[in-house]
């Protein structure tokens, strides 16, 4: 069984090694592409196994849990791994068009594949310290990817991103140490009982807050998000798309895992804080976006705003809300990565990302305009696109709890999201180009356009499919939420015994 769980991590790592050796040759990019295809296949195999058996676990080197490192996949982990592989493949294709040769020669594809391996590892591990190690793998790759290519802007962004992320990692690390001190275990499934039986429940709550801060910085929730709008608009578009899609979601995933599996002793306190944090995240994010006029800066602030919906799903802590949260995670990764892809192609055509300096894209590139509309309106929650169902589930969960204020904020933020999306639409697509020229697709070489439009169209198609046939996805999210709220299966599968 164990190879099913290992392959989605091992394949990108091996690809990274081979791609690094071939970095100076054109073969490097095709190796990366082939590796991403193989990763997707490995993830699909994992998904099939999880759908078949519910929860699967493997003990590394045959050290039995809770002593060894466990890899474990339940519905949530499996879907995150698959969506990571999909984003990875889309980015690998997109990078063919965008990344210049000198950046490739610096080892771009090796770093990119390492990033994917780190993200996948974080989703699959069942060991807290191992989670820290995956975070670091992911971080070091992301640091390098952010500054690769150089330039003042990127270095400035990189320094701020690195500094804040390292502080959060150290908080997380101290939290792990102290939690180990209380429970004597690092295995997350084993920790559940150990934490529940701990003598000093007050200390457990303090540690829960440490983890909330540590993961909160990664997830970019209010008031810990300042590194995100300072950095996400600077790297290559392929990179900012994969960051926007995946990195903050690792933080959200870690929050969801720890606050459903381990820290459930004082839900009234911890999850109440999460509700307020989520609402403020949603609101500040969307207001921040309204003040921006740069394509990518608007999108960056919207990441923050949307993260709030996901953590809200966790914070409300009902089956329906968590189901909405899981659905939102998946929907958001597809849509947000796609919007950054669109921004990149728009820059190729129109020459800039500042909305005041571009325009006329609707007339000259109607296909791109159509492909922008889909993720943009899905993000804003228009039916029948995927974002509508995601928001619908969260709002319904809030209504069922009679939380009128929460419902009001969720709907208001949705409305303000429409404002930002129509702003991009109006300024980049409808308004004539301020220089009086028509941004023509001819400005980009045809192979560049082809490499960039394929992933955009693919992800847009997925948005539409989820929108029109939400049934299987919603059912999947429902099972994932059930597993999160009642992790008996998870615990027994990892530990191999009845608790």
């Amino acid at each position, binding site marked *: 069984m164990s190879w099913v769980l290992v392959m989605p991590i091992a394949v990108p790592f091996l690809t990274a090694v081979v791609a690094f050796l071939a970095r100076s040759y054109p073969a490097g990019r095709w190796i990366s592409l082939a590796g991403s295809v193989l990763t997707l296949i490995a993830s699909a195999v994992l998904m099939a196994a999880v759908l078949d058996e519910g929860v699967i676990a493997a003990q590394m080197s045959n050290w039995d849990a809770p002593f060894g490192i466990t890899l474990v996949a339940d519905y949530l982990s499996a879907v995150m791994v698959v969506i990571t592989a999909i984003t990875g493949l889309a980015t690998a294709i997109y990078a063919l068009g965008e990344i210049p040769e000198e950046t490739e020669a610096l080892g771009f594809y090796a770093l990119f594949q390492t990033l994917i391996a780190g993200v996948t590892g974080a989703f699959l591990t069942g060991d807290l*310290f191992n989670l*820290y*190690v995956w975070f*670091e793998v992911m*971080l*070091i790759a992301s*640091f*390098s990817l952010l*500054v690769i290519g*150089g*330039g*003042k*802007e*990127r*270095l*400035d*962004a*990189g*320094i*701020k991103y*690195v*500094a804040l992320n*390292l*502080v959060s990692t*150290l908080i997380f*690390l*101290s939290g*792990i*140490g*102290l939690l*180990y*001190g*209380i429970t004597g275990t*690092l295995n997350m499934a084993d920790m559940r009982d150990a934490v529940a039986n701990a003598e000093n429940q007050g200390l457990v709550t303090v540690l829960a807050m440490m983890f909330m801060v540590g993961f909160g910085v990664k997830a970019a929730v209010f008031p810990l998000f300042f590194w995100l*709008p*300072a*950095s996400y*608009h*600077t790297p290559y578009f392929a990179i900012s798309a994969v960051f926007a899609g995946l990195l903050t979601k690792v933080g959200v995933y870690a929050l969801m895992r720890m606050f459903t599996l381990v820290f459930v002793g004082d839900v009234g306190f911890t999850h109440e804080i999460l509700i307020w944090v989520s609402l403020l995240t949603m609101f500040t994010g969307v207001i921040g976006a309204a003040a921006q006029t740069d394509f990518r800066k608007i999108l960056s602030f919207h990441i923050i705003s949307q993260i709030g919906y996901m953590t809200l799903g966790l914070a409300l802590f009902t089956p329906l809300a968590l189901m909405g949260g899981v659905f939102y995670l998946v929907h958001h990764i597809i849509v947000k990565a796609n919007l950054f892809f669109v921004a990149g192609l728009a820059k190729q055509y129109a020459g800039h990302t500042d909305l005041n300096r571009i325009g006329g894209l609707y007339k000259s590139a109607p296909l791109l305009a159509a492909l922008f509309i889909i993720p943009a309106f899905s993000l804003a929650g228009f039916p029948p696109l995927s974002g509508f169902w995601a928001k619908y589930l969260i709002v319904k969960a809030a209504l069922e709890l009679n939380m009128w204020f929460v419902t009001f904020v969720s709907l208001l933020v949705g409305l303000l999201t429409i404002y930002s999306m129509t702003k991009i639409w109006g300024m980049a697509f409808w308004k004539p180009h301020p220089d009086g020229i028509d941004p023509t697709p001819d400005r980009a070489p045809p192979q560049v356009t082809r490499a960039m439009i394929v992933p955009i169209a693919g992800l847009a198609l997925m948005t539409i499919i989820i929108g029109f046939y939400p049934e299987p996805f919603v059912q999947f999210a429902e099972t994932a939420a059930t597993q999160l709220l009642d992790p008996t299966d998870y615990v027994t599968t990892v530990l191999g015994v009845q608790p």
Partner: protein
Amino acid sequence: MEALTAIVIGGLTAASVYLMLARNFMRFLFGLVLLSNAANLTIFASGRMTKGHPALVPYGEDAPLGVVGNALPQALVLTAIVIGFGLLAFTLALAFEGYRRMKSVDTDEMRFAEPKEDTTK
């Protein structure tokens, strides 16, 4: 021993927070180093400090004899030190390159990715 370690950790953390509040990025980095050491000591201390023997199995035995120290936190700390070392090396290189390009280590002057603050008010 625990009390002394706790005071050391507290001192390190306080010094690191003080350094990290500085505008100078190099001071921030030194603060980060101290904080990472404080985190490592925390892990070490939370594994319980025992006056024991090293967790080694003597020749010809199946298990270590007598009371041995907890080996797991040491392994964790070792991992954390190695990772921290690598990240710090990267960050120093990044800071140096940043200084070379931006001609400053003052975070108030590093405003190339973000809009400059309005200082006229």
